């Protein structure tokens, strides 16, 4: 019966809202996404909003022995083709700039590899394509 449900609703749009330092939430979002893919669900997009945009910040220096969601998302995306998108407005405000934004603001680029920056329209596209929407707050 659970399998039947999983078959019926197999496209998920995933929004991550919690800062990468919030280990429980950051880990939940990541493990949930990995489990969904492993169960054969499609993930239409992973969209990082609010403080979660810092997940794509290249300049953060995290102790080597710590759980680092940045690395883990990048690995998962490399293995599965996941689309990892940071919200442009939230990212700019928090100083995460891709090369185009950086050139506009005359700042260095601070976007980590594996992530891209796009508008909220990319999230709405992902939502409308999905059967289920889930938001990870913490």
């Amino acid at each position, binding site marked *: 019966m659970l399998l039947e449900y999983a078959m019926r609703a197999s496209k998920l749009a995933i929004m991550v809202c919690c800062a990468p330092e919030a280990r429980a939430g950051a880990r939940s979002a990541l493990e949930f996404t990995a489990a969904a893919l492993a169960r054969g669900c499609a993930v239409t997009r992973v969209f990082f909003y*609010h403080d979660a945009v810092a997940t794509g910040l290249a300049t953060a220096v995290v102790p080597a022995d710590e759980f680092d969601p940045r690395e883990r998302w990048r690995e998962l995306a490399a293995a599965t083709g996941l689309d990892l998108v940071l*919200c442009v*407005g*939230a990212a700019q405000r928090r100083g995460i700039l891709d090369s185009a934004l950086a050139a506009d603001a005359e700042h260095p680029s601070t976007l980590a590899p594996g992530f891209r920056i796009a*508008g*909220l329209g990319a999230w*709405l596209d992902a939502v*409308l394509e999905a059967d289920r*929407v889930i938001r990870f707050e913490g």
Partner: protein
Amino acid sequence: MASPASSTRRRALVLMRDPPHAGIRPRERLDLILMALAFELEVSVAFVGAGVLQLLPRSGPGDPLPDSGAALGSLELYGVSGIYADAEALCAYGIEVDALRVPATALETEELAALLHRQDLLL
């Protein structure tokens, strides 16, 4: 689970629970609402708990607006389906619904629950 006859647009609800001036989340949640409206969803927004404080007007001419700022005023312009305020929270703060800076409908807890349970999307 089928769409009601009255509308083929998908109904989406955004809950606003954060107090104003305590972070940028309310402002960013409003940006999300505006984008959902641009995608022609039938969007409602419900201010619950401390979120109702976002609906208060300035006290005086020099006072700033909440972070949600002008965007809150533009919700109607962009065709939001409903703006709701948590009656229990309004009462707890001693705020009358006609003192709010946008025309919101006060909902009792039971109506709030019903609103939540008839959506196609919770954003």
